[in-house]
């Protein structure tokens, strides 16, 4: 995730187990390397590895603090036979900002492994996932996480709920479709994650589940999430979400509610799809206005929970422009309200979504 990277509070127990974690990840890396090396044996098949992902340059001004962030998020997909897939994504990110009000710009660069997972698609009802994967809680992290997919640059205020500690989990997950009918579909996800403090591979010990009902005719999905955090103070987080693209109007509406012992809140977002409205001609079809409102209510103080310290309301207005489908220009303005003071947020960015066959596979892919 290109959103906040949440650090785990150090613990003696974790330090003692970190060497074990290193061994596990080394073995996992070796296994995946073997899997990738196996790929040439499958050259006769009509599928091969691809590299996709996004590149972006983000500008933001938060309450007068200006920063720019170049970000590259490559995703490598390696299908193995007809049921297996190795997928991995890393985020290489720079953060350049003034060290003081009138000081020079200084930069930091860092990389994080977002996921490195082996998927075994048994059938439509069951997919088994092992490795490091995006924590499945509500829909923002897993479905809207890539920067070319979310409509506004900043993550919602409640994003840290249910995605501790980093938005990624190390462990196992099963997911699939329980029932699929022409008029409705019920899906599920169940996962567990181990504690890891290995640099760039951090995760929290937790287990959780998510389920959703999708109504294709109404183009409406609603669902709920639950997570039990099993390290330090054990606690429960739960949430609900919806995603609705009504056929009667060119609107893309999404929203989430999340609750944790530290606080709860919601966000709701609507984007107008001129492209689908059939109005305004080709020029207008490339624009997408967006509005998002959100509230967070603090219930108890939290340490490193990355949630707002007090009750907070925020509203954002954005405009996306797509000169070509793979490139997006975005600008937005947001205002945040708290009892202490109100803050302005300005953002602008350009993102590019790419997709190529892997270089060593080019000859076969033609």
């Amino acid at each position, binding site marked *: 995730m290109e959103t906040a990277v949440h650090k785990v509070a150090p613990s003696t127990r974790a330090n003692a187990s970190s060497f074990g974690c290193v061994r596990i990840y080394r073995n996992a890396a070796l296994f995946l390397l073997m899997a990738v090396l196996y790929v040439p044996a499958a050259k006769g098949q009509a599928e091969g590895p691809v590299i996709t992902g996004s590149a972006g340059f983000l500008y933001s001004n938060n309450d007068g603090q200006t920063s720019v962030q170049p970000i590259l998020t490559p995703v490598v997909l390696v299908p193995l036979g007809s049921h297996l897939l190795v997928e991995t994504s890393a985020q290489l990110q720079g953060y350049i900002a003034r060290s003081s009000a009138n000081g020079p710009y200084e930069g930091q660069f860092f990389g994080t492994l977002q996921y490195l997972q082996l998927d075994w698609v048994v059938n439509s009802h069951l997919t088994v996932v092992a490795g490091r994967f995006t924590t499945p809680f509500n829909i923002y992290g897993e479905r809207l996480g890539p920067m070319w997919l979310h409509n506004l640059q900043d993550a919602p205020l409640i994003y840290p709920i249910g995605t501790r500690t980093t938005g990624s989990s190390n462990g196992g997950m099963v997911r*699939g479709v329980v029932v699929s009918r022409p008029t409705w579909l019920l899906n599920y996800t169940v996962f567990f994650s181990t504690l890891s403090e290995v640099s760039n591979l951090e995760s929290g010990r937790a287990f959780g589940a998510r389920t959703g009902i999708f109504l294709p005719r109404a*183009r409406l999905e609603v669902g709920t999430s639950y997570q039990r955090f099993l390290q330090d103070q054990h606690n429960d987080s739960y949430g609900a979400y919806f995603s609705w693209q009504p056929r009667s109007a060119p609107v893309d509406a999404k929203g989430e509610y999340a609750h944790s012992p530290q606080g709860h809140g919601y966000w709701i977002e609507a984007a107008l799809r001129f492209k689908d409205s059939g109005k305004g001609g080709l020029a207008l079809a490339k624009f997408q206005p967006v509005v998002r409102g959100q509230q967070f209510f603090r219930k108890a103080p939290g340490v490193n929970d990355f949630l707002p310290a007090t009750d907070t309301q925020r509203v954002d207005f954005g405009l996306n422009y797509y000169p070509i489908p793979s490139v997006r220009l975005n600008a937005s303005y947001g205002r945040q309200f708290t009892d202490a003071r109100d803050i302005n947020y300005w953002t602008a960015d350009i993102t590019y979504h790419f997709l190529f066959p892997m270089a060593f596979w080019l000859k076969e892919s033609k």
Partner: protein
Amino acid sequence: MRSRSNLVVLALVAVSLVSAATSRAGRQNVNTKAAAKVDEAAEGEKRFVTNCGRCHQPPSDISPREAKAVLRQMRVRAMLSAEDERLILKYLAP
């Protein structure tokens, strides 16, 4: 002698008719397959709009190999069925 030549002519006519009928059936079969392919692509577009279109637009240019890899990933993330995967592939990279 005449009856033998008549039989030969009759056999030639029969072979020609069978050949023409087979050829016509083959063309019909090809046409039927092409129509089925178009139907599947149209159904794939519907399923793309219903499932994938909730988050993003269709890619402008994608090869069958690229589409297969991405669809495998989406089968996991977006929980597409095997039938969805097959039909959307027909739409994205026929």
